[in-house]
């Protein structure tokens, strides 16, 4: 069995298609593990992992914590709200203090793009990026592609449209990299104001009409409008956004095929996706959440196997 080509998971940009396949094959086995009566394996008994969340998160944080615990790692949690960051400590100081307590791996979410990369150059620990600003969210892209593979058999050759707030979305960027590395074609769809200016340089086509995008695709990944990252008005109102880019049952009924509907959560029901679509059989939103634990177990397991032992 080959190893990952990287020591950190900072972004999908830095990993190879072979790395992604290895993660998927390992995740297949972990998915079986988490469906057993006892959902825990002892592999990472001697590994300690710090979850550093400098930005709010529910799902990703729980998913990582569960993945770590199911591998039997020791876990410490940290959130910026209740920390010394508020007292003026720098990121490197904060992390080095935590590492002094003999921590082997850091899972970090940070509002600044590149925070994970920066940290990986300055501290001695394996870093997993759990979202850095509007840059990358690699484990989300991995679990999205894993879910597509599970539902459709393969990612290669599939047509995926990412709909919504592409501009502020780290999920979109990581997904674009991952899908392309696995041989899928990608379009993005959304209001012009929420599409980054030079996105075509990534080899991605832009489609402003949702109806046409849906006609083209096998999979629609509906993103949330990230109001918290918007410094000005990008569209007149939620209602107008929803009318133009919200996915409804009527859209799906008009198609002559059955497409797969995805959403990375949290859902704003009635804005980017209506309830009847989110709860329909075509939506694999809750499968994505389940797969998230298996995929994160695989990432952590494979990275941990590269950490040198103290006695070796």
């Amino acid at each position, binding site marked *: *069995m*080959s*190893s*990952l080509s990287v020591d950190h998971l900072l972004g999908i940009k830095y990993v190879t298609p072979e790395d992604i396949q290895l993660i998927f094959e*390992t995740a*297949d*086995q972990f998915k*079986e*593990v988490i469906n*057993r*009566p*006892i*959902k*825990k*394996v*002892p*592999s*990472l008994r*001697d590994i300690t992992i710090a979850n550093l969340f400098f930005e709010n998160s529910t799902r990703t944080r729980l998913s990582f914590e569960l993945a770590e615990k199911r*591998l039997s790692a020791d876990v410490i949690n940290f959130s910026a709200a209740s920390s010394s960051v508020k007292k003026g400590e720098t990121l490197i100081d904060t992390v080095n203090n935590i590492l002094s307590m003999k921590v082997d791996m850091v899972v970090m979410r940070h509002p600044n793009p590149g925070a994970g990369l920066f940290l990986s150059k300055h501290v001695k620990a394996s870093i997993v990026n759990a979202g850095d600003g509007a840059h990358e969210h690699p484990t989300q892209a991995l679990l999205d592609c894993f879910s597509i593979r599970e539902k459709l058999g393969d990612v290669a050759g599939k047509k995926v449209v990412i709909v919504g707030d592409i501009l502020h979305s780290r999920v979109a960027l990581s997904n674009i990299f991952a899908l392309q590395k696995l041989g899928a074609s990608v379009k993005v769809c959304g209001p012009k104001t929420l599409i980054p200016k030079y996105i075509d340089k990534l080899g991605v086509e832009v489609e402003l009409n949702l109806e046409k995008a849906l006609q083209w695709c096998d999979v629609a990944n509906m993103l949330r409008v990230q109001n918290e990252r918007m410094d000005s008005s990008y569209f007149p109102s939620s209602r107008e956004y929803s009318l133009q880019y919200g996915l409804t049952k009527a859209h799906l009924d008009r198609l002559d095929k059955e497409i797969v509907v995805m959403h990375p959560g949290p859902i704003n029901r009635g804005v980017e996706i209506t309830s009847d679509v989110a709860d329909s059989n075509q939506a694999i939103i809750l499968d994505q959440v389940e797969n998230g634990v298996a995929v994160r177990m695989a990432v952590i*397991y*494979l990275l*941990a*196997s*590269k*950490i040198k*032992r103290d006695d*070796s």
Partner: protein
Amino acid sequence: MSQKVLLNQTEVHITLHRLACQLLENHLDFSNAVLIGLQPRGVYLADRLAQLLKEDYNIKDLQLGYLDITFYRDDFRRGDKPLAANATNIEFIVEDKNVVIIDDVLYTGRSIRAALTAIQAFGRPKNVELLCLIDRRFSRHLPIQPNYRGRQVDAINDEKVKVCWQENDGEDAVYLINK
């Protein structure tokens, strides 16, 4: 590199029949017993025994599962490469069952130690037995011995025991290979 035949095709078949009969003696109709083949190489032996028990000895409803022990091994982070996992496929609970763990070669006993831990994720067995085709004597790291063995060999550490199966390697045979 030289190799010696430990069991040829006929001997493998005779041994398989004997092992199947020994299992029958202890478990009768297998109503409360399950067979668990260890991934990757123990599953061939488990499949063969299950096939014999069903076809030649008319056992119906034999429960057979495959167990992968990768995540329970005690040598994680001790080699250069990550430990690659195989599929586990156990679609029943082993609670209160007589479990027969099946592997092709019993060597250090560490795989079996891992399997004993791993099987607990599927319930608390009533008891656990071990069946192996080849028992390498004098090489154990742990106090683990088989309940059923095909053949016992005294192989030194430089030697390797290779079990070949028709469906995977094109023949049924067991070789002792001198590296």
